[in-house]
């Protein structure tokens, strides 16, 4: 795949707007892996940087760190006003999580990269996946996911979850995954399956059907078209677990709001009669995996979480995490 990418004639450029050591390291490694030329913009703001990027021949990929709300708004506007498509990725540290309403409304940012500044050491997973998908014909890299499928399950009842989780754990252990990381991965898919059965189903008016149903109750889809699918795929040292529902009711802003809330350490609040804890996404993120949602409203939601199969728990928790939510 790298070879296929290197065969491209045009030079790809990566614009970096950040002075933070971690971001520079991340971008340099990313660029080196994918054969990008790095343009680091110093002493300039996002608008000026975009202006310079607009004068380039190729469509740029942009990594940007906005340190304040004002910078974030400027970045958003500049990317929207660009005269060519800019593939923008936003580094997000603790400093911006409380500014999430602006952050989340913006569709100009492809991916949010949660760098966990204090210990962002393992960034390889991000650009390894980018490498894996860099043969895209449109000459932009898109984060995709391991495609070599190990297993696929079709679920028509919520009670199949336990067996699926057990099967996934066995298969992950067969990939020589560390027991602790395999447990984290299984926890993530446990939550995603529960979401698919209890939160995703909606009626014709978009109202949730089972959100207030006890999670131990049996939900059964008699219509085969409404089944939930799970897959486990690998690519080199990476494993991706995917859950797909056929409702497409997930919403980009609410997913990212939940994500920011859990990453900013907001304590969970439980109602006495609540059927769910509202911690599902937090548990997925706490597993250390990165997360991608692709939503086709009214049709399907694909939620994917991936892990490096040869990492130890300590390494998984120190890695960059990204969240990508695409809503078509």
């Amino acid at each position: 795949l790298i070879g296929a990418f290197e065969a491209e004639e045009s030079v790809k450029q990566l614009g970096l707007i950040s002075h933070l050591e971690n971001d520079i390291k991340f971008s340099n490694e990313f660029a080196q892996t994918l054969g990008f030329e790095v343009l680091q913009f110093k002493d300039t703001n996002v608008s000026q940087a975009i202006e310079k990027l607009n004068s380039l021949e190729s469509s740029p990929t942009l990594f940007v760190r906005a340190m304040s709300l004002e910078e974030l708004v400027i970045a958003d506007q500049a990317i929207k006003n660009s005269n060519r498509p800019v593939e923008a990725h936003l580094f997000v540290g603790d400093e911006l999580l409380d500014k999430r309403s602006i952050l989340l409304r913006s569709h100009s940012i492809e991916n949010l990269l949660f760098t966990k500044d204090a210990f962002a050491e393992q960034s390889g997973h991000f650009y390894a996946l980018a490498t894996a998908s860099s043969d895209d014909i449109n000459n932009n890299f898109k984060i995709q996911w391991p495609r070599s499928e190990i297993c696929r399950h079709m679920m028509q009842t919520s009670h199949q979850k336990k067996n699926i989780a057990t099967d996934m754990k066995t298969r992950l252990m067969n990939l020589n995954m560390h027991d602790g990381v395999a447990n984290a991965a299984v926890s993530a898919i446990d939550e995603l399956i529960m979401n698919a059965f209890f939160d995703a189903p909606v009626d014709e008016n978009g109202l949730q059907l089972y959100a207030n149903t006890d999670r131990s109750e049996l939900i059964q889809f008699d219509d085969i078209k409404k089944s939930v699918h799970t897959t486990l795929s690998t690519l080199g040292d990476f494993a991706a677990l995917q859950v797909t529902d056929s409702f497409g009711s997930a919403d980009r802003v609410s997913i990212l709001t939940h994500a920011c809330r859990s990453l900013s350490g907001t304590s969970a609040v439980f109602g006495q009669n609540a059927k769910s804890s509202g911690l599902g996404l937090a548990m997925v993120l706490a597993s250390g995996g990165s997360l991608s949602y692709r939503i086709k409203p009214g049709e399907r939601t694909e939620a994917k979480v991936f892990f490096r199969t040869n990492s130890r728990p300590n390494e998984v928790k120190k890695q960059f995490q990204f969240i990508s939510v695409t809503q078509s």
Partner: protein
Amino acid sequence: MKFEIEKTTENEIQCTLSGVIDENSNFEVQLSAKLKKMTIQCREVERINSVGILLWRRFFSKVRKQGTQLVFLEVAPSIMVQTGFIVDMILKDELVSLCLPFTCSSCKKSTKNVFTVDMLKNFVNNPSSTECPICKGESVFDDLIEEYTSILD
């Protein structure tokens, strides 16, 4: 999840939790109103999901409210890592001992080593490796220590 009661008297109960704590976990144990102390051994809790956390919290909140003292022994890593963001999962004074995950540098085997709270405090200042019970190689702590110590703050 298995919830096994090992010993019970009028004032005290000792039990063991193990397996996966999830939406199917049954915490509906009838406890005597006179119960003064409940000791829970949870070394073998493999994992807990979000609904499991909800059920755990509801059950132990109810036990606390009736005035029973809770004592948690050998708390598994899967539970310890939740204590950082679920404030009343286990209270500071209820934790007696916990398990820290170690991985052998040679054979990669993971093990759980039991630490009392005092041992944990010493370990934070002087982290040390242990001998792998399988290959006698060097086994090192393999997680983020702050996830295990936040309950002590």
